[in-house]
C-alpha cells in the first residue's frame, strides 16, 4: 500500500502538467475506434430490434435476408445460448424467445455495406405475441405486475446482490440502523416528500462502436470504444463459452464515456456476428438514434424520502424508499441500487435510518452506470429535504448542514466510521464564494434571483476486490514507458499516470510515455475505468511499479559503484550518490546494465518494474441490516452552490454563477481536477434544466439532439468557480482520491434550492424546463 507523505511531494505531483494526449487530439491524429482502417474485408453489421416493449418471439424468418446478395451472415438468439451480465447474468446476446424493451436485439446481419445490411433487416420477418408491459418501477414491484424474468432464480449472481425470484425485484438492499419508528415522535420537524428522477442519456459525442474479428483458430479480437476492456474480455468470453485467453480487446481513445461504455453494452453483438464470418472484421457503429433507443441509460428513480430533526436542528431519523427503474436487464442497476442504499443518508450523521432500495425490472431501456452512479438521483431529493427541514426548524440551510454533516470519525449509515474528511471546509468555501446570505438585486423587473447550495458524498461502487496493475520499463534513451489497463476517456488519467510515474521514479514528466492503446494482450490488468477509482487505485499500481523499477536501478548502480542503495537516488533522470557525489544518466544503464567493479562481468539488465493494488479491507454488509465494518474504500465529499435568475415572462432559468468545492485528498494535477469540476457542473446543470428521455409506452420519443437537448456553449454559466480541498486519503497516492463523477452529484438540488429561493416553488423532479417553471409560476399565482 502506498504510504502518504504529504511533506515530501516530488515534482511533478501537484503540478499542472500539460495533457499528455493534447497534441494528438488537436491535430486530428488521435485514433478513436472508428478511425482504425480495416481494408476491404470489413463487413458492416446492423441489428433488427424489437418494436415492442414486451413480447414473446413466435417466429423469425430470415430466408429472404440470407438470400440477399452481399449478406454474409444472419444470426439470431438460437445461435448463442449463453447468458451475459456484470453482477447478474440476466440477458442473452440476442433475444431468444422474449423481448423486453423497444430496441432489444433480435437478429444480427453482416453485409458488405451498411446499405445492404439495412436492406436485409427489412427482409426479416419476426412474429411477436405482444405482452402487457411494466412501465413504472412502483407498479413493477407490485405482485400484480407481470413477471418479466420468470427465470430470475436461476441466473448467476454476485454474492452481494439479492434478487427475489418470482417478482420483478432484481435487488433489494436494506438499511436498518437504530429504530426510526420510535424516533418520529421526538422530532420537532419532519419533511416527507416524493421525487421522480427521469431517465437520461449519457450522450457521449462519440457513438458506441465495436469491430470484432474471429480467426480460424477461434481467437477473437474486439476493437471498441470501451471503459472496460478487461471486463469485456471476461464477460463476452463467458457468454460465448470460450476461454478468456481467446478473447483480446483493443481499446483506443474513448470519445466520452460517462459510464455508458462500461461493462458490456453492444460489443457482444459484433463479436457474436463475427464468429459466423471468420476472417472478416465486422463493424457495428450505432446511429445517434440507436444511441438514444438502445444504449444504457441513467435509470429512472422514484424516491420517497422522510427525515426529521430535533428543535436544535440535529438530524434524528431518515426513512427512504428507492424504486429504481432498472429496465429490461440489469447490467449495473443492481449495484446502483446497493450503492444508493449504503449512501442513503447523504453526507450526514443520522442515528436512525431505515432504507429500502429496490431495483425493478421494467420494459424500459437497460440501466447502466452513469457519472455519479445513483448519487445525483438520490441527492436530488435528499438535499432539497435538508433545505426544507432547515426552513421548518428556523435554521439557515448552511448552518444546518454544518451541524449535521459528516466529520472525521462520524458514524456512517452502515455503522462504520468516516475517514478523514474536509467536508466542513468544502461547505464554508462554497458558501463564501457564492456570497451566502447576501441577496443581490435581479437584473430586471421581470427577473427573480436566488441562491442554492447542496452537499454530496460518493464512494467508488465496485466489488470489494477490484484490482489494478501497472508496469514501468525504460528505453535506451532513458524514456519511461508506463503500461496501464485503465482508459483515457477524457478525464486525463494518462496524464496523471505519467505524472505519478515521473514523481515516483525521479524522471522529468516529459520523458514519460503511456503504452497505448490499451490491449488486453499486452496491457496490465485493470478492473474497469469506472467509479472514479483510477487516480487512486491505478495510481497506486503505477507508483508501486515505478518504485519497483527504481529499486532495480539503484541495486544495479549500488553494486557497480560499490555503494549502498540507501545512499543513491534518482533525480531528474540521473542516478546520483549522496555519498560519493557520482552521477549517471538513466539511459546509460537501463537496458544494458553496468560493468561490475573491476570490469569483470556485468550487473543489471533491462529494467521492468511491476506494481499492483487491490483494496483488502472491504467487508461485507449484513443482508438484513446493511451494517458492517467497512462497506467501501472511501467517500469523496463536496459542495456546490449556484446563483440563478428566473425569467417571469418565460420561465427560463439562467445560471449566473456556479461554485464547486470538493475534497480530493490530493490534487495530482490541479487544473485537471478543476476541469472535472467544471465539466461535471455543466453536465449536472444540463440534467437539471433540460434533459429527460421521454418514454411513452416504452418508446423513446426524443431520439435526436434536436429533441433531446443538452447544454451548449450558450448555456454555460459565465462565472464558474472550482476550489480544491485536500484532506489526504490514507491509502491514496500522495493522498489522492477520485473526483470524476462527484462534480455532477449536487447540481440538481443546488439548482432546485436556488429556484425555491427565487420564486418559492419546488418540483417533484427535474428537468426544470422553462415551460414547467412558467406553468408552476402560473399555478402559484406568481405570474398571470
Amino acid at each position, binding site marked *: 500500500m502506498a504510504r502518504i507523505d504529504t511533506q515530501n511531494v516530488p515534482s511533478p505531483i501537484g503540478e499542472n502538467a500539460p495533457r499528455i494526449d493534447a497534441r494528438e487530439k488537436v491535430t*486530428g491524429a488521435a485514433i*478513436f475506434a472508428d478511425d482504425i482502417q480495416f481494408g476491404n474485408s470489413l463487413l458492416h453489421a446492423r441489428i433488427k430490434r424489437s418494436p415492442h416493449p414486451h413480447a414473446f418471439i413466435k417466429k423469425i424468418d430470415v430466408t429472404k435476408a440470407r438470400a440477399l446478395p452481399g449478406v454474409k451472415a444472419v444470426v439470431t438468439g438460437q445461435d448463442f445460448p449463453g447468458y451475459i451480465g456484470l453482477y447478474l447474468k440476466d440477458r442473452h446476446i440476442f433475444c431468444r424467445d422474449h423481448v423486453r424493451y423497444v430496441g432489444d436485439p433480435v437478429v444480427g446481419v453482416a453485409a458488405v455495406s451498411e446499405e445492404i445490411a439495412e436492406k436485409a433487416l427489412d427482409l426479416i420477418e419476426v412474429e411477436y405475441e405482444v405482452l402487457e408491459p411494466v412501465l413504472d418501477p412502483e407498479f413493477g414491484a407490485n405482485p400484480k405486475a407481470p413477471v418479466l424474468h420468470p427465470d430470475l432464480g436461476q441466473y448467476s449472481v454476485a454474492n452481494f446482490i439479492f434478487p427475489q425470484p418470482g417478482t420483478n425485484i432484481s435487488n433489494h438492499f436494506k438499511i436498518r440502523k437504530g429504530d426510526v419508528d420510535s424516533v418520529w415522535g421526538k422530532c420537532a420537524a419532519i419533511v416527507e416528500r416524493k421525487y421522480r428522477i427521469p431517465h437520461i442519456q449519457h450522450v457521449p*459525442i*462519440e457513438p458506441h462502436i465495436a469491430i470484432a474479428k474471429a480467426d480460424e483458430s477461434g481467437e477473437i479480437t474486439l476493437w471498441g470504444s470501451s471503459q472496460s476492456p478487461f471486463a469485456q474480455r471476461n464477460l463476452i468470453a463467458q457468454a460465448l463459452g470460450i476461454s478468456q485467453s481467446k478473447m483480446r480487446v483493443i481499446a483506443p*481513445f474513448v*470519445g466520452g464515456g460517462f459510464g455508458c461504455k462500461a461493462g458490456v453494452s453492444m460489443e457482444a453483438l459484433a463479436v457474436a456476428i463475427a464468429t459466423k464470418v471468420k476472417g472478416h472484421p465486422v463493424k457495428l457503429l450505432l446511429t445517434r438514434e440507436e444511441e438514444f433507443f438502445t444504449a444504457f441509460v441513467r435509470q429512472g428513480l422514484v424516491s420517497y424520502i422522510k427525515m426529521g430533526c430535533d428543535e436544535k436542528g440535529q438530524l434524528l431519523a431518515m426513512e427512504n424508499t428507492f424504486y429504481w427503474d432498472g429496465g429490461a436487464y440489469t447490467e449495473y442497476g443492481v449495484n446502483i441500487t446497493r450503492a444508493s442504499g449504503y449512501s442513503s443518508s447523504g453526507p450526514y450523521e443520522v442515528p436512525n435510518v431505515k432504507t429500502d432500495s429496490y431495483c425493478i425490472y421494467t420494459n424500459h431501456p437497460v440501466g447502466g452506470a452513469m457519472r455519479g452512479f445513483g448519487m445525483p438521483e438520490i441527492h436530488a431529493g435528499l438535499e432539497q429535504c435538508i433545505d426544507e427541514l432547515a426552513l421548518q426548524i428556523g435554521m439557515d440551510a448552511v448552518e444546518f448542514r454544518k451541524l449535521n454533516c459528516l466529520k472525521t470519525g462520524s458514524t456512517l449509515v452502515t455503522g462504520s466510521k468516516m475517514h478523514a474528511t474536509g467536508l466542513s471546509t468544502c461547505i464554508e468555501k462554497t458558501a463564501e464564494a457564492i456570497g451566502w446570505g447576501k441577496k443581490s438585486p435581479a437584473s430586471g423587473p421581470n427577473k427573480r434571483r436566488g441562491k442554492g447550495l447542496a452537499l454530496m458524498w460518493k464512494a467508488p461502487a465496485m466489488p470489494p476486490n477490484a484490482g489494478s496493475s501497472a508496469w514501468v520499463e525504460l528505453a535506451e534513451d532513458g524514456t519511461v514507458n508506463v503500461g496501464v489497463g485503465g482508459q483515457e476517456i477524457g478525464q486525463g488519467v494518462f496524464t496523471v499516470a505519467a505524472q505519478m510515474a515521473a514523481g515516483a521514479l525521479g524522471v522529468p514528466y516529459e520523458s514519460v510515455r503511456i503504452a497505448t492503446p490499451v490491449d488486453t494482450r499486452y496491457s496490465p490488468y485493470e478492473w474497469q475505468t469506472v467509479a472514479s477509482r483510477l487516480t487512486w487505485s491505478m495510481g497506486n499500481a503505477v507508483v508501486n511499479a515505478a518504485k519497483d523499477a527504481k529499486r532495480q536501478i539503484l541495486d544495479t548502480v549500488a553494486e557497480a559503484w560499490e555503494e549502498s542503495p540507501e545512499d543513491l537516488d534518482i533525480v531528474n533522470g540521473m542516478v546520483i550518490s549522496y555519498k560519493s557525489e557520482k552521477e549517471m544518466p538513466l539511459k546509460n544503464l537501463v537496458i544494458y546494465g553496468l560493468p561490475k567493479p573491476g570490469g569483470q562481468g556485468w550487473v543489471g539488465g533491462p529494467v521492468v518494474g511491476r506494481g499492483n493494488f487491490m483494496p483488502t479491507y472491504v467487508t461485507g454488509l449484513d443482508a438484513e441490516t446493511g451494517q458492517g465494518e467497512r462497506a467501501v474504500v472511501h467517500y469523496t465529499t463536496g459542495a456546490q452552490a449556484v446563483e440563478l435568475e428566473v425569467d417571469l415572462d418565460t420561465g427560463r432559468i439562467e445560471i449566473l454563477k456556479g461554485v464547486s468545492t470538493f475534497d480530493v485528498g490530493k490534487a495530482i494535477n490541479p487544473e485537471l481536477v478543476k476541469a472535472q469540476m467544471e465539466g461535471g457542473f455543466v453536465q449536472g446543470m444540463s440534467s437539471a434544466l433540460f434533459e429527460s428521455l421521454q418514454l411513452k409506452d416504452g418508446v423513446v420519443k426524443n431520439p435526436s439532439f434536436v429533441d433531446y437537448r*443538452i447544454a*451548449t456553449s450558450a448555456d*454555460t454559466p459565465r462565472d*464558474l468557480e472550482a476550489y480544491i480541498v485536500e484532506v489526504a486519503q490514507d491509502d491514496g497516492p500522495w493522498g489522492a482520491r477520485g473526483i470524476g463523477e462527484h462534480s455532477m452529484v449536487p447540481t440538481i438540488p443546488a439548482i432546485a434550492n436556488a429556484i425555491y429561493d427565487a420564486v418559492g416553488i419546488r418540483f417533484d423532479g427535474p428537468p426544470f424546463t422553462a415551460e414547467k417553471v412558467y406553468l408552476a409560476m402560473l399555478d402559484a399565482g406568481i405570474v398571470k
Partner: protein
Amino acid sequence: MAFHKINVTINDELEQVVVPSNMTLMAMLRESLAMTGTKNGCSAGECGACTVLLNGEPVNSCMVLAVECDGANIVTVEGLAEEKQLSPIQQAIIHEGGVQCGFCTPGILISSHALLKRNPNPSENEIREALVGNLCRCTGYVRIIESVKEAAKIQSAAT
C-alpha cells in the same frame, strides 16, 4: 448508383476522388481518403463534430454531398497546423485545458478558427454564438471559450 470524378483541394493538396452520388463530404474524408480527424457524431448535422471549412465557411460535412465539392477548397483539422507549427487556436486550447476526450475537438477547432478569421477579436457572446452548434459533453465549454479568447491574443500578437 452514379459515380463522379471530382477535383477538390483539401488542406492545400489537390485530390482527385471518385465518389458515388449519395456520399457525404464526411464519408469521403473519413472513408475514401482515410482522413479521420473529422469525426462522426450524429450524421444529422446536429453535433458539429464533423465541421470542416468549405470555401472558408464552417459546415457540417455530414450534411454536404461530396459531389457538391467539385472544385472546392476544404480545410480539416489536419490542415490547421502549418509546418508542424500549431495554429493559435490549437496552441490556446492545449494551454487553456479545453481538451478532454477530444472527440468534439476537431469541430470546435474548425468553428473557432473560422470565427477568428472573420472576427479577430470576438466578444464572449460572439464566441458562445459561434460554438453553439458544436456539442461538447466533457468540458462544460468554459475552457473552450477561454481558448478562443487566448487564441485571439496569440493571433493579434503574431500580426
